[in-house]
């Protein structure tokens, strides 16, 4: 894609330096420091409360760190906002809000529109293309209140696609979606990677991590490990990240998978 030319210098897409974050004096992230290479699909994994969502929120400028900073292509976020896209957790918005599916996807274009400017024809085209990519083109006029959980997630992804960014941050896009949506998201992630985009995904399902992603960032308050899947996603590192909880955790995962399965069949 036009990607390499846009980048110019070879600064890495995401750099995080000595990042510490706290909520009411309790640390949530402690001295996290890493660099992500371009064109990777990275999963952020770790136990509940490990600071996974917080990490991407800090990089996106939604939370102020106590110390440290993040750089996007070697520059502060403020100059690079147009080159990043964010897929927040589905539950973070009110799905009864009076807008249509296309309206939500068009919001992805707002990053490229000046103040007081309305989205134009080209923006609508891009939004519709994005909807097509997630298999939701037929729903563009639908009110978002009528969507199932999986469809909501796809609309959020389409919105991020419409942002036409170089780096995508996604907060648990696979949480509670049906099998067909999971397949769609996965295919999309791979398309983004082959287009040279960098994708960072908070992921909770340890069973699928190594199938879906090529890099992994393991987090538990501190950075446990980061690197290519084969060398980093090891039992040893998992022990370090999840501690003694790993065995119980695997059982919980099994249980929740079964529950998810029940919920998904209800959805479809």
């Amino acid at each position: 894609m036009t990607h390499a030319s846009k980048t110019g210098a070879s600064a890495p897409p995401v750099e995080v330096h000595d990042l510490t974050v706290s909520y009411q004096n309790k640390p949530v992230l402690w001295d996290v420091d890493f660099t992500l290479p371009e064109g990777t699909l990275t999963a952020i994994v770790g136990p509940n409360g490990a600071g996974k969502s917080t990490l991407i929120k800090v990089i996106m400028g939604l939370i102020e760190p106590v110390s440290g900073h993040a750089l996007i292509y070697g520059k502060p976020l403020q100059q690079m906002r147009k080159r990043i896209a964010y897929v927040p957790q589905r539950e973070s918005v009110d799905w009864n809000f009076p807008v249509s599916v296309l309206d939500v996807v068009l919001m992805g274009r707002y990053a490229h529109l000046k103040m007081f400017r309305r989205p134009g024809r080209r923006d609508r085209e891009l939004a519709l293309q994005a909807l097509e990519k997630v298999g939701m083109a037929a729903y563009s006029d639908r009110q978002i209140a009528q969507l199932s959980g999986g469809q909501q997630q796809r609309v959020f992804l389409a919105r991020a696609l419409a942002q036409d960014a170089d780096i995508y941050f996604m907060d648990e896009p696979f949480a509670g979606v049906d099998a067909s949506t999971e397949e769609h998201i996965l295919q999309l992630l791979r398309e983004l990677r082959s287009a040279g985009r960098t994708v960072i995904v908070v992921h909770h399902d340890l069973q699928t991590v190594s199938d879906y992603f090529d890099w992994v960032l393991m987090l538990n308050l501190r950075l446990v490990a980061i690197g290519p899947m084969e060398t980093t996603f090891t039992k040893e590192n998992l022990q370090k990240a999840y501690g003694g909880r790993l065995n119980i955790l695997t059982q919980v995962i099994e249980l929740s998978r079964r529950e998810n399965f029940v919920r998904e069949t209800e959805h479809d």
Partner: protein
Amino acid sequence: MTTFWIILTACLASAACALVGTYLVLRKQAMLGDAISHAVLPGIAIAFLLTASRNTFPMLLGAGAFGLLTVYLTEKLQERGRLMNDASMGIVFTTLFAIGVIIITLFASSVDLDHECILFGEIAYVPWDIWFFAGMNMGPRPVWILGLVLVINLIFILGCYKELKIYAFDRQLAVSMGIPVAFIHYGLMGTVSFSTIASFESVGAILVVALIVVPPATAYLLTRRLSVMLVLAVAFGVLSSLSGYYLAYITNTSIAGAIAVMAGIFFALALFFSPLDGVFIRRNRKVTLEAPEAVAGMAAGKNREDSIPLT
């Protein structure tokens, strides 16, 4: 002519309130209108003391400042004090309101600033509150003020339509895109403050809340489009004003009270007969609700699920 001025005042007030109220209702902050309408009292009192007159503009400014202060203090209290949003709001606005009452009773008791009027307003006196400009009779002062506030609201909403939409729907995304969320937030709170203050002279602080919440809530039940919701909210506000005036005329009661009653009646009608989500529609829809996707939607808390099959 008196009738005309009274109705026009009521319509302007309800339109201005409905526009900003729509965003408050969507942000689940409807009671902020209530909080602001009370918390601005010290602002009005201070402006009155400083200028020693019932000149409107200093009062608007004082009230606007205290409106924003209410919002700011509520947010800070929530953040720093680890309190719930509604509790923080309850603390801030009652305290400010009480301070206002004390200022008025201490310093202004000898002069013409009536807290009865601030609470309940009296729209029937509007035609005699004439604005003289360069010796010319320009018509009732409240009409000019409310007209100005309505124009400000319209400019703000039309100019920042997309920013307001994304701010109300997904604030995090808006921040991540670099949209000036703080400007939009305080802009909205400023317009809410102005609308509240300009209106409550006529309809009173309590009924302002009805104008801010009820017509937008009625519109919310009837549409799933933001633009339509804005238009419907204004329409219901104006309709409540017109019918409220005649209700008051027939029953010889308070005009402001009758307007609020009519707004409530329109809301009840929408609640029962809305084609989208009305109680009667829902009853008739029971059979279709048993379709599996609707059940799943219900389980996920989406009881606004439509009956149209999803695939």
